[in-house]
C-alpha cells in the first residue's frame, strides 16, 4: 500500500491483443460503476477494473469473474467503450494462463467433453421430447434450437415442452436438430475461452449449413444473441416471444383461459432486452392473455436489473446478500404479483433459486412466457 506502483504495460498490451482495445477509449467517468448492478452489492468496481487494465496494475484478478455481462454499462457509456469485450479479453488472458476459478471449471469441462454445460449425455439431448417431436430435415421451415438448459435442466425442460406444444398447435413446420449439435457456446466465450467457443461454433455452423437451415427458433436469449451477432450466418434467428407475438396477432394461437385477474410482472432478460432490443414482444404476448393483471416492476426495459446468471454467473456461488436475483425477486414481490414471468432459461434458474432461498415459494411463481401461453390455450379434446 505504501510503496509506489509502476505501470506494467505488457499486461495492457496483452489485454488489448486478446480483444480489449476498447481500454484506450475509456476516460474514467464512472458511469459504468454508477449503473452496474453489482456496485451496491459487492466491492466489484468495473471502472477501476478498466483502470487496472489500462495500466497493468495489480488487483484486476480479484473481481474479474464477477461481471454478469448484462450490458447496462455499455449502453450508458458516453464514450461507447465496449466494456464487455474488455472483460472477456481479461478473462481470456487469465484463463489461458490457467486461472479459471474452481466454480467455473465444471461447466467449461463439460462443454469441452460433452458439448453442453450440464454434464448431460449428448446422445440424450432430445430425450426431453419423449420421441414425439419432428426431426429437422433440409427443407423444414424452422429449426427449433433447444438451449442445453431446456434440454437437460429438470425445471427448464417444461419450457421446451411448452414451446413444442405451441409450435404444433400453431401448425408451424418445425423440427429439432440432430443430437450432433452442441451448446451455442455463449458461456464459454464470456468466460474467456475463445478456442472452445470457436470449436463449438464451427460444429454448429457446419450442421446448419449442411442442412440448409434458414430460420432458427430459440428459447434462450443467449443463443439468440450468439447466433445473431457472433456466428455470422445468413439465418434468421427468432426468439420464442417474437414468434408468439406474431402468431397471436395473426390469430394462429388464441390464448383463451382467463387468468381471473392474476397479477403478473415481467423480468426483461439482459440478453433479450439490452443486448437484443426486444422489449415489446413479450409484453404484447402477456397482455393478450385474458384476465391478466399486468404490472411493471420499478426497473424495466433498458434499466432492467440483471438476474446475475450471465457471464458465468449461473455457475458461480455467491454469498447471501450478494445475489442480484434475490433483489429482483424482492422487486417482483413489491408489485404484488403472484407470477414473475420471464423469457430466458438462465433467468428462470436464477430467479427460481432466489424464490426458494427467500422462502417466497408460496407467494410467487416463476414462469416462462411460453409456459403461460401454452397453459392458456384451450385444451384439445
Amino acid at each position: 500500500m505504501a510503496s509506489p506502483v509502476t505501470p506494467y504495460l505488457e499486461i495492457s498490451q496483452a489485454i488489448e491483443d486478446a480483444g480489449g482495445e476498447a481500454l484506450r477509449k475509456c476516460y474514467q467517468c464512472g458511469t459504468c460503476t454508477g449503473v452496474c448492478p453489482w456496485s451496491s452489492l459487492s466491492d466489484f468496481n468495473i471502472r477501476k477494473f478498466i483502470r487496472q487494465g489500462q495500466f497493468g496494475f495489480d488487483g484486476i484478478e480479484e473481481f474479474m469473474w464477477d461481471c454478469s455481462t448484462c450490458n447496462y454499462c455499455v449502453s450508458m457509456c458516453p464514450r461507447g467503450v465496449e466494456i464487455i469485450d474488455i472483460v472477456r479479453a481479461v478473462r481470456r488472458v487469465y484463463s489461458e494462463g490457467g486461472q479459471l476459478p474452481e466454480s467455473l471449471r465444471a461447466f467449461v469441462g463439460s462443454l469441452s467433453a460433452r458439448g453442453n454445460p450440464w454434464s448431460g449425455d449428448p446422445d440424450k439431448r432430445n430425450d426431453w421430447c419423449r420421441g414425439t417431436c419432428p426431426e429437422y430435415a433440409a427443407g423444414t421451415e424452422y429449426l427449433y434450437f433447444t438451449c442445453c438448459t431446456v434440454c437437460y435442466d429438470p425445471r427448464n425442460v417444461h419450457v421446451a415442452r411448452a414451446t413444442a406444444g405451441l409450435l404444433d398447435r400453431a401448425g408451424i413446420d418445425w423440427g429439432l436438430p440432430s443430437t450432433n449439435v452442441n451448446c451455442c457456446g455463449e458461456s464459454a466465450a464470456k468466460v474467456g475461452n475463445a478456442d472452445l467457443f470457436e470449436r463449438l461454433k464451427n460444429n454448429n455452423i457446419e450442421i446448419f449449413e449442411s442442412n440448409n437451415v434458414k430460420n432458427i427458433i430459440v428459447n434462450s436469449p443467449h443463443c439468440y444473441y450468439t447466433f445473431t451477432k457472433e456466428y455470422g450466418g445468413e439465418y434468421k434467428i427468432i426468439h420464442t416471444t417474437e414468434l408468439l407475438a406474431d402468431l397471436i396477432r395473426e390469430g394462429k394461437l388464441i390464448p383463451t383461459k382467463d387468468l381471473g385477474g392474476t397479477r403478473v410482472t415481467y423480468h426483461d432478460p439482459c440478453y433479450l432486452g439490452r443486448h437484443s432490443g426486444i422489449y415489446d414482444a413479450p409484453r404484447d404476448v402477456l397482455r393478450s392473455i385474458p384476465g391478466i393483471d399486468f404490472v411493471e416492476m420499478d426497473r424495466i426495459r433498458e434499466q432492467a436489473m440483471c438476474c446475475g446468471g450471465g457471464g458465468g454467473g449461473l455457475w458461480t456461488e455467491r454469498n447471501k446478500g450478494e445475489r442480484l436475483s434475490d433483489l429482483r425477486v424482492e422487486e417482483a414481490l413489491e408489485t404484488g404479483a403472484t407470477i414473475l414471468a420471464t423469457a430466458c432459461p438462465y433467468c428462470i434458474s436464477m430467479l427460481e433459486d432466489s424464490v426458494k432461498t427467500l422462502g417466497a415459494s408460496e407467494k410467487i411463481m416463476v414462469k416462462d412466457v411460453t409456459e403461460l401461453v401454452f397453459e392458456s390455450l384451450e385444451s384439445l379434446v
Partner: protein
Amino acid sequence: MSRIGVFVCDCGLNIARTVRVGEVVEFAAALPGVVMAEEYKFMCSTPGQELIQESIERHNLDRVIVAACSPLMHEKTFRKVMEKAGLNQYLLTIVNIREQCSWVIEDKDKATAKAKALINGAVHRSRLLTSLDSRMIDVQPGVLVVGGGIAGIQTSLELAAMGTKVYLVEKSPTIGGHMAQFDKTFPTLDCSACILTPKMDAVLQNPNIELMTFSEVTEVKGFVGNFDVTVRQKARYVDHDKCTGCLSCVEKCPGRGPSEFDEGLERRKAIYIPFPQAVPQKPVIDRDSCIYFKKGKCRLCEKICEQGAIDFEQEDTDREITVGAIILATGYDLMDTSPLVQYGYGTYQNVYQALEVERLFNATGPTEGNVVMRDGREPESIAILHCIGSRDKNYHEYCSRVCCMYALKFAHLFKEKTSADVYQLYIDMRCFGKGYEEFYNRVLEEGVKFIRGKAARVTDRATTPDEEGKLIVEAEDTLSSQFLRLPVDMVVLAPAMEARADAGEVSRLFNVSLDKNKFFIERHPKLDPLSTMTEGVFLAGTCQGPKDIPDTVAQAMGAAAEALTIVGKEQLELEAATAFVNPSECCGCHNCVRVCPYSAPSFNSEKGVSEINEALCKGCGLCGATCPTGAITMRHFTNDQVMGELEGLMEL
C-alpha cells in the same frame, strides 16, 4: 508571340527539398514563348514580388507563370503584382508544385518530372490567355442581422456606430434572447439584465437600427452586396404605432398560456410582453391562448385600450429589403432531457434543467428569486449533474463548453440564497477563461462538495429511513472508488447546448451549411470562424457552436467587421472567370439552368436564350460542359485554353 516569364518558388524547403528547382528553371527557360525563368526562395515575400515586378518591366513580359503553392494561398497576392506592373491580372497562371507535387511525392525524380509537366501545360495555356476585365458592382449599404440575442444586439450596435444601416430581425416579441433569462453571469456575477438591458435600449434608440421583432425572414435572393430579403412581420393584433405601452390590457386579460420566458414554470397572459424589460415594451397577442381566437368571445383588451390599439383583423405583412451583407446570430436551444429517463426529468417534479433554475434565481421569475421547488419546499440539499447529453456518444459527442461554469455559478448562488448542502457531479472541471479557475477556487472555499463521477441515475426509491422523501442520485465517486447513493431534495441537470431545431430551414434560406452537430459551419475553424462558404453571409454567437457570453460578444464584434468589408465599400470587384452565353448559339434547352448549383443562369423567355448572372457565377464549368451546342464559354478556361494545357501536360 507571347513573352512569358516563369517564376519558380523554393518555398523554403517545402518545394526545394523534393523538386530539383534549378533543373526545372532551366527546363522552363528553354520552352517556346518563354523569355526568362527564375528561382527564388520565397516568391510571396516582398523581395519575391519585387523580383516579378522588375522582371516584367525589364523583359517586357506579357504573361507570367508562378510555380509555387496552391492558388488558394497566393493567387490574389500575385494578381496584385501584375496590376502594379501594369499587366491584366488574368494573364497570370499559378502552377501548384507544392500541395499537388512536392508534398505528395517522395521520389525526387518523379516530383521533378511532374513539376516540369505541370509547367509545360501552364505555358501552353498561358499563350492562349486573354485579358479579362473585372466587373464592379454597386454594394447595397445595409446589413441584415438575423436574431436579437446578445450576439445580434452587439453586432448591430457595432455596425450602427460605423453609420451602417442595420435591419435587426428577431422572431420572438422581444430582443434579449436567452441571456435575458439568466440571473447572474459567470465569473463576475454581473446581473445579466443589468448588462444586457442598456444594450437593448441602445438598439431601440439607435437611429441606424431598424428593429423588427415578432418577424422572420421568409426568402433570400441575390448575391453578396445585393441580397433581396423578404421579412414577414407576424400579426401581433396590437398596433404598435398607437400602443403607448401602458399594459392595462395585460392586467385584465383572462387568457393564459405557458410562459416561454419562464421555461413553462409560470403562466402568462394571452396578451403579454415576455418580461418587464422587453424591447419593444409593447404587447403581442398569442393566438393559441387568446379566448377570442379560440372561442370567439372576450375582446376585453380592446375595450380597455384607450388608444384603440388592439386590432384583431391585423394580418402578417411582408417587407422587402435589400442589404449588402447578412449576419446570422440565431442562437441555441437546450437539449430536452425528458428522453433520458434515468434522470427523471419530467417524472420527478424536483428535477430541474439549467434555464429553469435561472428563472428561479431571477427576481422577475416565478418564485421572485427565492429557491422554492415545485412542491413548495425549500431544498436542504441540491445535486448538480454535469454532462447530461454532452460528451456522450449516445446524444452529443461534443462538450457544451459553458455548463461547468454555470454549474459553479449555480452552486455559488445556492450557497448565497439557502443553507443547503450543494454537490456537483462532474467528469472534468472545465474552467478555461479569464477568471474562471479563480471562480472554481472560490466556490470550493464556499464549501460546495465536488464528486468526480458522472451521475448514473436519479431515483425516489428509498432503501433507508434517511432516504425517505428524497431524490437519490446514484454515481461512483471515482476519486475514492466508492459507489455513492446521494439523497438530495433537488436535482439540477446541465443539458447539452444544441443547435436550434429550425437550423435546417435557416441554413437553406441563407444557403449556408450545417456541421455534423447541426451548427452553422464556418469557412475555416481557425482562420475564418465568422464567414461561411456563401460570400456575404457571416456568423456570430452560439449558432456557430456552444460558447459563453465573452466569446459571443467578441464574435459579434468580429462579424460586424467582416460585414463592413463588404458594405464599407461602394463597389465590389467580381471575379471575371465566369461563364457567358453566346445568344446566337443558345438553343434554349434550359440544361444550364438545371445543372447550376449557384442558380446563376436564368432563361430569358423574351429573347429565348439563357443568361448568366455573373455575380452568382463561380466559374465552376458545369454549364459549359453541359451545354449541347457549345454556346457557353468559360472565361479564363476556354476549350482552347484547357486543351492547350492538356497537350502541354502530356507532351513530355
